[in-house]
């Protein structure tokens, strides 16, 4: 399927949501984005020693998920590049900063760095560093909860590259076979490091999911559209949503190298929608506050840890 900022778009989809939800959505986007942009700056000073995997540019998806798939505090299984998920679901930003700084007070006690963050309070689980391994782990946990009648759903997030792992594909199939309450999200930026999808396969995630008799859809990263489909598919789990995203950063670190220019700027598109909704003033205030709050948190923590 062609990549586009309008893939699967429903005209005026943002109008279906009330202003409070839309402004909360934008707040979470801004907080995540501000955190990542500041992390970018801090990384370039050399204070952060471990590799980082920034999520800015794709944060609209995490924000949308956190407002549409949250009621039972679902178990969340992600891999590297999950700062956005952690923050949007309410993970403590100070603990994330500490993790990036390699401190024992970090959200993973220093074990995970940027790549393997966790937060028991929001049921966000650690990752062992192997691409896509979180998917069968998530499916196994989902099976256990179903057997024991534990009413807590599972959220599994991959990128378009790790989703190709054989054990990920068979996990989709088995979750469908066992009719497990799990939502699979594929954040598809069209790249495995720098290798495009078209060079790696001639099939799509959604066609494969449908072959496994699992509801699936491919859409763009419009957060209102994401919320709409998550809420819809939440009644038909297991399900898969392949979301076309444009990440703002390269694979790891902050140097762009040959990383391609993003095809669209979702953040700017969201701002345009907010303007159309008559929420310009409120959104500007949210953006300003998020930037200010995140910078205060970062500054304070850097000072406390002697990293100014």
């Amino acid at each position: 399927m062609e990549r586009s900022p309008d893939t699967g778009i429903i005209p005026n989809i943002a109008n279906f949501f009330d202003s409070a939800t839309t402004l909360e959505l934008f707040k979470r986007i801004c907080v995540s984005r501000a955190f990542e942009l500041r992390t970018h700056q801090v990384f370039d000073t050399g204070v952060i020693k471990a590799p980082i995997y920034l999520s800015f540019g794709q944060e609209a998806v995490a924000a949308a998920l956190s407002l549409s798939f949250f009621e039972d505090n679902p178990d969340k299984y992600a891999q590297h590049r999950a700062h956005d998920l952690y923050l949007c679901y309410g993970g403590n930003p100070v603990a994330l900063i500490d993790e990036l700084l390699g401190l024992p007070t970090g959200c993973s006690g220093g074990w995970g760095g940027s790549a393997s963050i966790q937060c028991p309070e929001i049921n966000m689980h650690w990752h062992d560093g192997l691409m896509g391994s979180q998917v069968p782990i998530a499916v196994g946990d989902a099976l256990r909860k179903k057997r024991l009648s534990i009413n807590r759903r599972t959220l599994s997030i991959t990128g378009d590259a790790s989703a190709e792992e054989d054990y990920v594909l068979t996990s989709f199939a088995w979750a469908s076979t066992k009719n497990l309450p799990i939502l699979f999200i594929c954040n598809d930026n069209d790249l495995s490091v720098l290798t495009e999808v078209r060079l790696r396969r001639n099939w799509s995630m959604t066609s494969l999911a449908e072959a496994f008799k699992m509801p699936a859809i491919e859409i763009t990263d419009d957060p209102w559209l994401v919320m709409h489909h998550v809420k819809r598919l939440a009644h038909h789990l297991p399900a898969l949503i392949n979301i076309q995203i444009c990440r703002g950063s390269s694979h790891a670190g902050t140097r762009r190298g040959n990383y391609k220019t993003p095809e669209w700027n979702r953040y700017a598109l969201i701002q345009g929608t907010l303007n159309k909704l008559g929420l310009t003033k409120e959104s500007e205030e949210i953006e300003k506050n998020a930037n200010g709050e995140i910078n205060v948190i970062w500054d304070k923590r850097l000072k406390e840890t002697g990293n100014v």
Partner: protein
Amino acid sequence: MSDKKPTLAETICETTRDYLLNHQGVIFGQCLNGAGQVAGTVPALTEEQGVIELPMADVMNSGIAVGYAYGNGANRDGRAIYLVRYAGFQWFNSVFLANFASKTKEMSGRPAPILIRTSSSDGSTGPSIGPVASCSIHGLFVHNPGMKIIAPMTPGEWVSGWDAWLDHDDPLFISEYRTGYGIRDEMPDIVHDNPDITLFPISTTRLNVLKALPMLEKEGIICNVIHLVWLKPCLINQRILDPLEKSRHGGIVLDSDFENGVSKCIACDIMQHTSRKVRVMGLEERASGFAAHLDNLPPTSEKIYKYVKNIVGK
């Protein structure tokens, strides 16, 4: 009386049945309820009762089982057993066992105490599978921290592993060997006052060592036999060291896996505590094939006899 004792296979089956039916346990694996219930070690129960058939997706399968175990955490009830019915399939399965289950307690504070049963067999003397599977494969799992390994051959040894698994929250790798499934009696150590050598056999080599003993005795060679059941951790205590110190020609660790694995690790550990030399015998350093002349089996009694005789020089 001896005939009324349960075999190792029966012990495994009944222990599993009780745990599934009374403690919300589950056992995962392929073809569990067909083809002889994996040599009679798996109770014929339904999925609702806890026997969960997995598809032929070996890499994923271990992830499913580990995910289940991780979700259950340290709870004594509700744990997951994962059965790999041929050892060679562990090449596919090892990733989630060695990299996730082994590490999770240390890295996240949440354990995944999965019981990993691996059923090994001889090549052409048993159900021959030639190059597909070596004999035992516990050496593959000794590498990573966090995994405990036991190689029981008797009912009592298997139950001791089971009890240790339930009493702790670490993953446990049980290296089984099909030659042991019919065993009913325990196998005590054999210790002499004036030995020539001490043999430390593992898994099915224990049976081969016992067969070699009369042949060696005829040559006037006195052998201690200290059965190695726990492979990791392998406690290097006086049970191991005292007989070895009295042995004029040191010892041999005998394994049903390749030598570059558990046997060399244990031999090295033992030698940290003694000046006695400890050698190893295991599968030969080569691939194995279906044909008898290409097979690669654990040291036979004849091979053990020749090797020991050569060392002792009698």
